[in-house]
């Protein structure tokens, strides 16, 4: 037994050393990686190495972090990306991580409570479906830190991580304005709720930026999971002359993609790179880099820089983006877009980051 313990400790020290060295090396090599580039606050670059020393080297036992998901991961890329980011962070920062899936809201609450009881040092959860459960559990455990991804949340012991989706939607809208030939562009949106205004409003602002007189059609599916209805709506928009119809309806997007394939119009996906499924029609994807965000959250925690309050991820932090413009894609660059237009979009991206272009967030307007 003793020997076993000693061995564990030695191997742990070796592991720490390796981690620190690799971290320093990564910093020296410049911030190429997706994870490395995104920062939450001021300290970047050279600072990171020192922080890693302080945070990673000193602690004896590994910090334990739980990611409690509100539903089963299944094929939902939004969640699989989070798990990837979590595991990558575990490897890079020497923390122990655990992903916990839930079957329903009651199970989510029980899993959150169990994660508290199991003594995880940080508990991360995600999405609007987790709000009720987290409200209860966080209030009952004021001395325990929590984080919630992709959801505004106000509590002293919770970090809420939000995306500036409107910035990426602006880029997508700008791209749509560049590729449309009929001068009519559509969007099929899941529900008519304020949250999704970030998508439609950002998209419209971008569209107007590159193509001021384009006609913009919006339809609401009324569900996140109704591909059949979304397909019908897309067909209606196509009949009205739209040649680019953006999918903004989660699982329902599949119906739009099907319509695009049948009728031959252009479309785009959300959250992850959907262009790989049908590069001819799905020419773009508005990205939400949930892996980066989980990675960064764990990194902050491991390095002792974890803060509460709201953290925003936009284009500048690589938390959101657009295929071909802010991120590589295995699909070929679509012909209608071409390298020239992509350069144009890259310029718009830089202008948004530097503040030359201001994208209005409809949620903050009121």
């Amino acid at each position: 037994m003793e020997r076993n313990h000693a061995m564990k400790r030695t191997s742990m020290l070796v592991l720490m050393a390796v981690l620190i060295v690799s971290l320093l090396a990564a910093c020296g090599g410049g911030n190429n990686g997706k994870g490395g580039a995104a920062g939450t606050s001021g300290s970047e670059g050279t600072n990171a190495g020192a922080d890693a020393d302080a945070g990673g080297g000193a602690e004896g036992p590994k910090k334990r972090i739980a990611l409690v998901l509100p539903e089963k991961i299944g094929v939902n890329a939004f969640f699989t990306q989070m798990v990837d980011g979590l595991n990558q962070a575990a490897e890079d920062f020497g923390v122990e991580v655990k992903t916990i899936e839930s079957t329903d809201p009651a199970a989510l609450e029980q899993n959150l409570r169990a994660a508290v009881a199991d003594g995880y040092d940080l508990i991360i959860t995600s999405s609007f479906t987790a709000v009720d459960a987290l409200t209860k559990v966080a209030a009952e455990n004021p001395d325990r830190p929590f984080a919630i991804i992709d959801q505004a949340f106000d509590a002293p012991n919770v970090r809420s991580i939000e995306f500036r989706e409107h910035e990426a939607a602006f880029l997508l809208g700008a791209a749509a304005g560049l590729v449309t030939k009929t001068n009519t562009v559509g969007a099929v949106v899941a529900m008519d709720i304020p949250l999704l205004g970030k998508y439609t409003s950002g998209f419209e602002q971008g569209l107007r930026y590159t193509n001021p007189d384009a006609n913009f059609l919006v339809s609401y599916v009324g569900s996140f999971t109704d591909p059949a209805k979304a397909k019908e709506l897309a067909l209606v928009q196509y009949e009205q002359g739209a040649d680019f119809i953006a999918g903004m309806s989660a699982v329902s997007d599949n119906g739009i993609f099907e319509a695009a394939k049948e009728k031959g119009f252009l479309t785009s996906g959300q959250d992850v790179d959907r262009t790989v499924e049908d590069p001819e029609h799905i020419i773009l994807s508005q990205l939400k880099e949930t892996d980066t965000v989980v990675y960064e959250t764990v990194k902050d925690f491991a390095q002792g820089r974890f803060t509460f309050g709201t953290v925003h991820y936009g284009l500048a932090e690589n938390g959101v983006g657009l295929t071909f413009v802010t991120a590589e894609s295995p699909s070929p660059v679509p012909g209608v877009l071409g390298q020239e237009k992509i350069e144009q979009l890259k310029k718009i991206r830089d202008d948004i980051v530097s503040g030359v272009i201001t994208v209005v967030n409809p949620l903050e307007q009121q």
Partner: protein
Amino acid sequence: MRRLADSLRGLVHPLAALAAGLAAGAVAVIVVGGSVGETYAEMWKGAFGSFYYLTNTLARSTPIMLIGLGVALAFRAGFFNLGAEGQLLFGALAAAVAALYLPAPPALAMIAALVAGIIAGGAWSLLAGWLDVRFRLNLLVSTLLLNYIAIYVCSYFVSFPLKDTSGSAAINQTNMIDRAVWLPKLFKGMSVHAGFVLAAAAAVLLFLVLRHTVAGYHLRMHGSNPLFALYGGVRRGRLMAWTMLASGGFAGLAGAVEVLGTQYRYIDNALTAPGYAWSGIMAALLANSHPLGTAAAALLLAALQTGGMGVERNTEVPLEIASVIQAAIILFISARFTRALLKRRKARAADGTAA
């Protein structure tokens, strides 16, 4: 003495079934490359491992137990009420609405919400009973189909008129019920709430009513031999109305306590996704519609679910495999009951005495 021996012998079969179920589950664990011992240890810990987990299991069992009791009551009377899901939903919605909008002092509002849940669930169930009596509409079919109506009607209410539009408004749900109206938790920071006490009390009450009252006798008589019961003066329509009302009332109460004790609002899909209603029906089937047995079966089913969550949290065995283990155990246990049932039928056919 004979009774004791009988009940001990009665235990042999479920234990053997449990063992067989666990063995089948072990195969699934091995197939995905997990450790059998560890998985089952975590399953046990997740369900009963500490006071905290035990209370989790009790909380999970509460709606299953109440629904199971309602179903058992109907089954005992010979009525195949498969509409627990719809009754559950209407009970939950009615309780949420009463708790949210009734201008009454909190304690009163809480009781009113519970009663509203019972009435709404009961009324929905009564409708099916009335359709049977009045139009000879097969109860099994009507209760099953009324579920769908209930699911979509409730979904409509929380998607439109009753929807909580504050915050992100991305979930279809009602506003949150005022804290003062919540059912109290039995222990601070634990999920089990006063609804469990109600459910346990209801089990005992139902047991006594069925065994010691005239109404209970009529009901059991109708369940064992409807023709004899009718000959003996039991009025079928009336019996069916009261039975369905009570049966749906239990399911409605289950919805009400889930809303008032756990979720504090009506959330679309939150009561259908965990399959409470079907677990409840399963509990009644496993226990052969015995009220106390149904309560015990509800605890077992809840333990399998919370144990599965424990497996998910603490091992690399995925949640799906935990479900496979649960299903295997349930399958083997129900196999024993069906066998017993068949045996009894045969015996009855042979010497003509009812069990």
